[in-house]
């Protein structure tokens, strides 16, 4: 009896979590032109419309480019910072750690407004660079966390063994440390990519009249129109996320990646 209840509970929780996705999925294949649950004949019309929506296509391009560059930039900054924090002693270490983790606790609205005030005078609003800088700021804590976790669980004596065997610091990093923490890096970079791709609030603040990411484009679209095209786009985005997760899973085992 308890077992049945337990199962029912799990099913209910999943239904609750998945309900929005199921609804979106359903609406996107519906020929009704209202963004609401309706039972018209099925249709692929909204998907076809996506392909000719220049706004969405441009938004997707901007998002893809900025998310990719963000993922690379956070690695380039996050890995050295994590290495310094995990392996060396230096002054103000606590402060450095706090600085890179802190964006997590500042509300997006505040961050967005702040960035707007800084970006406006120097002409960074609505540019690729502006978006990348903003997204680097909000995603770097994730990369630093996964990298730090990999570094602290890795056996330091492996690096020491390599040095005793004649490897200098750079060779030790390249041949020993990097391969060992690589799954953690990929996890962090994928997380950064997805967060950047998904980020709406800050992007909205700093969009100005220039480059606009996909989430911002979607938000603007919804202000004027409400047809299932947005649902079709959502389904496409969900599929992309699923594909990314599957690829990472196949390439190195997601569980391993998430555990660093």
């Amino acid at each position, binding site marked *: 009896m308890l077992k049945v209840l337990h199962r029912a509970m799990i099913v209910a929780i999943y239904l609750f979590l998945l309900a929005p996705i199921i609804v979106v999925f359903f609406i996107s294949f519906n020929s009704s032109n209202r963004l609401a649950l309706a039972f018209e004949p099925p249709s692929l019309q909204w998907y076809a419309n996506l392909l000719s929506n220049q706004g969405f296509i441009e938004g997707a391009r901007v998002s893809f480019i900025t998310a990719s560059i963000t993922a690379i930039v956070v690695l380039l900054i996050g890995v050295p910072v994590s290495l310094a924090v995990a392996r060396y002693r230096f002054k103000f270490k606590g402060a450095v750690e706090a600085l890179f983790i802190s964006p997590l606790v500042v509300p997006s609205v505040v961050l967005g407004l702040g960035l707007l005030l800084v970006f406006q005078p120097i002409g960074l609003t609505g540019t690729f660079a502006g978006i990348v800088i903003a997204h680097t700021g909000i995603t770097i804590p994730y990369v630093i966390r996964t990298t730090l976790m990999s570094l602290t669980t890795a056996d330091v*004596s492996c690096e020491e063994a390599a*040095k005793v*065997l004649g490897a200098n610091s750079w060779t030790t990093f390249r041949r020993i440390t990097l391969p060992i923490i690589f799954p953690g890096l990929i996890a962090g970079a994928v997380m950064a990519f997805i967060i950047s791709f998904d980020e709406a609030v800050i992007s909205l603040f700093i969009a100005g009249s220039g480059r606009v990411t996909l989430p911002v484009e979607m938000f603007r679209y919804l202000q004027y129109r409400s047809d299932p095209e947005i649902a079709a786009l959502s389904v496409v985005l969900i599929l992309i996320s699923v594909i990314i997760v599957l690829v990472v899973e196949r390439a190195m085992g997601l569980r391993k990646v998430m555990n660093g």
Partner: protein
Amino acid sequence: MSSAQAHLELRGLNKTYPNTESPAVDSIDLNVAEGELVALLGPSGCGKTTTLRMVAGLLDPSAGEIVVNGKDLVGTPVHKRGMGMVFQSYALFPHMTVAENVGFGLQMRKLPRKEVKDRVQEALAMVQLDHLAQRRPAALSGGQQQRVALARALVVEPTLLLLDEPLSNLDAKLREAMRREIKQIQQRLGTTTLFVTHDQDEALDMADKIAIMHNGVIAQYAPPEEIFDRPATRFVATFVGKANFIEATEVVGRGGGRYRVSSDLLGTLEVEGVEGIEAAEDAALVVRPHRLGVRRRGESSAPQIGGEIVPGGPVVPGRVVDSAYTGNVRSLVVDVPDGQQIMIDELTVRDRALAIGDEVEIAFDPDDAFLVGSR
């Protein structure tokens, strides 16, 4: 594989960690001759690992010199010291095969591919693992990982081999087998070796000389037999083997490390001892439990130690208060007149068991007593 034999000398080597008051390693001197295996033995936290890591170059000394073949290595970075080290955790590279692990040091020395391959093969054969060359470390047992770590350290023909508690992660049976194996390989190659352990059996079994460390200083540096028979301090006597201490009331030096020692329990004896003891204060006679003979009081047979009759030494009356049987040996605790308790390890004899409460007499050969001072 061969080895250019190296001579190691530590001079006033000191390490004080930042934000600590007393040094972890307190100005130690140590001289390791070519081809010797020296064990650094001491309780946890006495500074063994710190010493070893300074020799390896993984830790900068606060003061002192590390002289190998006449050259001070302080300031030489770790990757240029040409040493071999085996870590407690083995520290095998998890993303490389066994062969790649063993070949890593040779690659760093930029040897031709062919030579790397041959020498890896040879090193793996030495530790009987040639058939596992393509495995990953995770797919090996503890003992096999240990062997890979040893092969990886030795394949580069290191000037010094450094081992930090290499056997402590193995089970008891395997540990003993590996002791012999490491010792044999070390003797065959003649590599000067520094071996850190907290296990006295390991040190006594393997080492040519043992340095007993205590609170960052070397309490005694001598061959195993001397450490055991002629301990330099009370600490050494208790840390290596079991010891009874009989407090001295009067000590008169006779020169050449011989003393006339009086004690409440044993009267006056002529014994050997640590050189330079001047006062009875804090001085004590060390007597090993297995060098004491015991018989039931009133029994006429002469007390025996390991089958030998004790010549006319002192005889002390007492009463058995504890008795532990371990097969080969029965360990007794006996109350003696001055309120002290004496430990006795007696080889077991069929049909003769002393029980708690038995009145006994203890006898021993004064030559088995050794006088230690206050240090």
